[in-house]
């Protein structure tokens, strides 16, 4: 796949060493911070992008100080590869091997292990980064999501990248795919070009690039020309790599729209509604893996993933709070009595179960005489005391005295209830809601 281009394109470095000798002063600022940022794939994104922004600004500002383009298209291709490699490195994307991991090894551009290390970076850390970085890479700066402010703020960078890509493809006609080769070249050249970055200013000042003066102003327009076509091709390729294409920005926005409830223990209504939507859509989208190209599925998967992560974080947060709050509290069944107030909507079952446990079985005998109506009324009373709770009949009326006896026998064993007993109690409670339930069989479980 595309990754293989990076790894296995054994392209000899004919001229990288020239760069080191012609490093102008502005490039020192460019080279050092990105190296540090790229060397640490786990550094913060902000660190990446601040360095990257400085790198880009220095690159943009340096054409005036650059030497004239002496060599031909091949040098421009090297610089282009360096540029795109830096972009890939800044985004820590698995598709683009970061260029600077081998900057310490100055003269070993074919250190494949360095290219593999970024693939080991945690995928989940920067998923939306990949989505956002890839389309931005080839195109001329669509409105970038927050993690990439630097890239979008650079006005001429993407245009230059586009032009560099077209020059790079021209210089390697014999290769299988222009962009694959481009990226491979980038991967190989990037480390060396980082050391000697003099080529970039030369490329930018080359006469061929000055044709692109007009696209500088009109970034997002689809202007005719080979440059734009190649940019679009690169964008498509990148979008395929990222897996979501034009919807990548939407995905990230949707993902961030989900309220982050992990900081608070409360589940919000929006999250529940989103979850229902997500679950229903997930069940409906039971297609094969080939349907991953449908953007809706990727959106849904992202939403689901975020929701599951947020729920897990909430559970962790709540367990932390429980650990800190309850060092010596008593968790016996008496607490459950007052806990009954916590389930007003399920008022039937928990309220009835536990007071039956605590109350004597003698109280139980009064219950069959109660009304179901009363039962329904008291289910709404969340603050019912034990007596009033006991006055409510959890069991169907009059029908089940024999089974009720069986139930009362099982009551004292409540702390030792097995799961099956619990089931029976639960279902007995719920039988009442539709009164015409035949509950005998369930009661006798």
């Amino acid at each position, binding site marked *: *796949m595309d*990754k293989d281009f990076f790894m296995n394109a054994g392209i000899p470095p004919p001229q990288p060493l020239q760069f080191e000798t012609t490093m102008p002063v502005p490039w020192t600022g460019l080279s050092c911070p990105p190296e540090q940022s790229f060397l640490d794939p786990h550094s913060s994104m902000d660190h990446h992008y601040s360095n990257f922004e400085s790198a880009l600004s220095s690159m943009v500002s340096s054409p005036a100080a650059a030497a004239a383009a002496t060599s031909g298209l091949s040098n421009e291709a090297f610089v282009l590869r360096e540029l795109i490699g830096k972009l890939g490195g800044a985004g820590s994307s698995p*598709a683009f091997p970061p260029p600077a991991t081998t900057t310490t090894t100055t003269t070993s551009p074919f250190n494949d292990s360095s290219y593999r290390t970024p*693939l080991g*970076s945690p*995928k989940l850390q920067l*998923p939306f980064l990949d989505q956002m970085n890839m389309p931005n890479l080839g195109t001329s700066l669509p409105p970038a999501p927050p993690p990439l402010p630097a890239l979008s703020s650079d006005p001429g960078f993407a245009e230059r990248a586009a032009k560099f890509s077209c020059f790079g493809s021209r210089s390697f006609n014999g290769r299988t795919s222009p962009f694959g080769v481009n990226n491979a070249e980038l991967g190989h050249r990037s480390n060396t070009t980082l050391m000697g970055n003099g080529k970039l200013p030369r490329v930018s000042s080359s006469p061929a690039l000055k044709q692109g003066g007009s696209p500088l102003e009109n970034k997002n327009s689809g202007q005719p020309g080979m440059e734009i076509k190649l940019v679009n091709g690169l964008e498509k390729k990148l979008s395929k*790599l990222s*897996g979501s294409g034009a919807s990548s920005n939407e995905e990230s926005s949707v993902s961030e729209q989900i309220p982050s409830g992990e900081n608070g*223990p*409360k*589940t919000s209504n929006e999250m529940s509604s989103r*979850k*229902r939507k*997500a*679950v229903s859509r*997930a069940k409906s*989208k*039971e297609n*094969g*893996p080939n349907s*991953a*190209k449908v953007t809706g*599925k*990727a959106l849904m*998967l*992202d939403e*689901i*993933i975020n*929701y*599951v992560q947020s*729920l*897990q974080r909430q*559970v962790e947060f*709540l*367990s932390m709070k*429980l*650990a800190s*709050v309850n*060092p*010596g*509290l008593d*968790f016996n069944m008496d607490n*459950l009595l*007052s*806990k009954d107030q*916590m*389930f007003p*909507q*399920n008022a039937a*079952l928990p309220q009835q*179960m536990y007071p039956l446990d605590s109350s004597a079985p003698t109280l139980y005998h009064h219950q069959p005489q109660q009304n179901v109506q009363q039962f329904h009324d008291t289910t709404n009373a969340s603050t019912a005391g034990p007596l009033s709770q006991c006055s409510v009949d959890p069991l169907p009326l009059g029908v089940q005295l024999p089974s009720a006896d069986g139930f009362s026998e099982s009551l004292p064993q409540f702390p030792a209830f097995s*799961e099956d007993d*619990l*089931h029976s109690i*639960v279902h007995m409670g*719920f039988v009442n*809601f*539709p009164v015409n339930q035949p509950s005998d069989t*369930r009661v006798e479980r």
Partner: protein
Amino acid sequence: MKTPHPKNPTCTNPSRSIIRTRFAVRFLNAMKKLNKKTPPSRRYHTIRAAACASMASAVGPRRAWSRAILRKIRARTLRDYIINKSRNHRLITRRKSTGLLRGNPRDQEEVGFRQEDDLRGLVPGGEGMGFCRLLSETAHYIKCLRAQVQVMTNILDHYNST
């Protein structure tokens, strides 16, 4: 999700509260035991493990994710038991090495598999099932997680109020 519970053919809503109740009972029992013997330093981890375990046992072996959690817990308790018995640390490292299979970086060759793999990593036991099954397990897992969060929130509120 709104399909009637198999034991309650007509009542749809109670299926969620059934899980809640079962989880609440188990979790409270576990907390009772935990409070007696765990030191405060490990309390958070034990409570979190107790929450997971009680949720898994409340669901039962019907779901793949609950089976995976129970399997993990049993393996861990067995390992701890063996360690306590024999102090054999080589056993620990052997088990850890098998766990690395999941942690290896995967090549993202296909489109969209990244998210699927992420989901598999999130849902316990999501490794060895197809995508459709993964989605249904995720749906049930989400439902149970919500119930868990609600119960724990209620417990917290209760103990904070009293």
